[in-house]
């Protein structure tokens, strides 16, 4: 528990709370000789409690004005979820329909379908963490790994904007992997690739990617938005079977050779995409530590309360003041004791 203040400089006024030690709020009564009255315990007690009341009234107000609060806490708990790094293809062809046409009327482009369905996926479970990267020619970090689902949905809302040029999946994969971070060891990680095509992964980069996949061991999901009539992941090309001739098939082979849990979903329509996302959601059910924020607590009320207590005492004492000088006929030691604490202010 940590105590903080909004305006700590106000606390420099705290020495003012010592003012009641130097001066009293009570009326000063002239008395011929203070020695004439006997030492009286009750009067002494009242005198000190009035000073204390003054200190409380001033000190409480100064503390209250500084805006004290107890700092919010972050508590790590365990929930069900996963760290999901989403890698989205933003190449131009994503803006076509599953039939490979420009969308018209009620038709939905591949990007719009994945936007809608991924948006539902994000936030369906409270403790998932997401990162979003995009790639076309170059990889782009959109949102780093976060549990703020609003921000992730804002990133996903942008994916059906006009896309860019080409599909360069290798660098995108590198960036999506870098989002996991090294610290969390026993967290279930998932890498979700949403693309409608593939490209040749440069053999020079393949080694680096393999090493990264082996180190992080994410569950790999490839949501392949296949355009109707285009080759499937499993289709062998009729001619030469090279990565250039069938990039999708060879990307699939590359993923399979990584030795990590891998599933490819070939979706030829929005329903198939929804189905695939549902499957991923069911598969990723592992405990995940998440951080819960306890909000900060305002303590100004307590400080005002303390000040109020002191003030009530002071006001009561002012109301109970009796002035000896007005009671000339009965000036005697026996009449003095109770309600005249000021007598002690010697």
């Amino acid at each position, binding site marked *: 528990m940590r105590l903080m203040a909004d305006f700590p400089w106000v606390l420099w006024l705290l020495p*003012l709370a010592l*003012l*009641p030690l*130097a*001066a*009293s*709020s009570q*009326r*000063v009564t002239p008395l011929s000789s203070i020695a004439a009255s006997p030492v009286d315990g009750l009067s002494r007690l009242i005198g000190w409690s009035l000073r204390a009341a*003054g200190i409380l*009234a*001033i000190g409480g*107000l*100064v503390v*209250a*004005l500084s*805006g004290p609060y107890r700092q919010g806490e972050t508590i790590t708990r365990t929930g069900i979820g996963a760290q999901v790094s989403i890698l989205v293809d*933003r190449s131009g062809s994503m803006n076509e329909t599953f039939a490979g046409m420009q969308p018209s009327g009620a038709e939905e482009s591949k990007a719009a379908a994945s936007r809608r369905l991924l948006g539902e996926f994000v936030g369906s479970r409270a403790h998932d963490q997401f990162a*979003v990267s*995009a790639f*076309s*020619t*170059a*990889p*782009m*970090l*959109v*949102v*780093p790994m*976060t549990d*703020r689902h*609003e*921000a992730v949905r*804002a*990133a996903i*809302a*942008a994916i059906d*904007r*006009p896309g*860019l*040029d080409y599909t360069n999946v290798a660098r995108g994969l590198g960036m999506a992997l870098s989002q996991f971070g090294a610290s969390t060891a026993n967290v279930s990680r998932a890498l979700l690739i949403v693309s409608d095509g593939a490209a040749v992964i440069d053999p020079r980069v393949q080694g680096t990617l393999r090493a990264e996949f082996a180190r992080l061991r994410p569950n790999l999901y490839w949501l392949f938005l296949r355009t109707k009539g285009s080759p499937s992941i499993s289709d062998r090309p009729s001619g030469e079977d090279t990565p250039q001739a069938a990039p999708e098939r060879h990307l699939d082979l590359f993923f399979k050779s990584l030795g990590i849990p891998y599933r490819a979903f070939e979706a030829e329509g929005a329903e198939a995409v929804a189905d695939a996302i549902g499957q991923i959601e069911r598969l990723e059910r592992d405990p995940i530590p998440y951080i819960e924020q306890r909000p900060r607590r305002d303590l*100004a*009320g307590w400080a*005002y*309360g303390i*000040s*109020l207590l002191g*003030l*009530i005492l*002071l*006001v009561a004492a*002012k*109301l*109970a*003041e*009796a*002035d000896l*000088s*007005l*009671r000339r006929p009965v000036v005697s030691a026996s009449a003095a004791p109770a309600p005249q604490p000021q007598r002690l202010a010697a």
Partner: protein
Amino acid sequence: MSAPGLVRRNLRDRRFQLLAAALALVALTFVARPLPLTRNGVEILAVLDITGSMNVRDYVGADGKPQSRLETAKAALRELVTSLPCGSRVALGLFTERRPFLLFTPIEVCADFAPLDGALDALDWRMAWEGDSRISAGLFRSVEMAASLGTDLVFITDGHEAPPLPSTGGPAFDGKPGAVRGLIVGAGAYALSPIPRYNDRGRETGFYGSGDVQQENRFGPPPADAESREGYNPRNAPFGAAAASGTEHLSSVREPYLKTLAQATGLTYAHLDGPAGVGPALVRAATPRPLPGSLDLRPVFGGIALALILAVFAAPLFGAGRFVLVKKV
């Protein structure tokens, strides 16, 4: 004197009245509700130029070392995001080639600060998908994008067109000037500086030389003064025979050009002097968006109460208490 008489006399005491007023004020802090009021927030689309000329190091960083325009612009955006009142929303886009690329739609600057800050921190020139830098085209499409998002625009660029504009000038703005409000922020110093050059692995390899870039745009019709150039031939050498020379391989902030663009689009121009300063300029230029806020009245009551109590206690030190007493008696 009887007890009620004493009380009545006490009630007339000035210092009692002050203390009672302080008590009433402090008691008020427990019942006073925060005053609801509206504050002005903003909703912006921030588009950052990440083309090559933004790598020019003509700013001085916090550590005294040269800092690139891009790093300074990122610092300015982070500064801006922290200075905006909670409830303001920021969308982020990149600009290169001839179009903006939207990273995310507007997100709230306080609750979602961590991902927003992380995204700003990760901005890099390596995200660029092409090398061209057609500022006017990018700006006009950013204005369209801001309109489609319903936000204002903050477009940070150095105004360095690559390739250079043809003699006929750039494309014209066909939107409605002033329909989208906001800022064009000119990044860069006023003096020319060399532009760093990077190889295909992203490592810096020196600076651009005068022969590495297009110095004159020779697409389209030749300029009016072409006939007076040496070696001019209408068919074979319409731009003259000499190779174009110029300072396109060096970069400074193209302020007059950006001001023209600002005028054409109805935006406000501001120069980026450092990481701070975009906030106030934006607040002047942007559409104010009312945000619900509240004003805590307790410090007002508490402050007055404190002043009253201090007056009560300090009065005898200055003899005022005695004066009151003598007067009353």
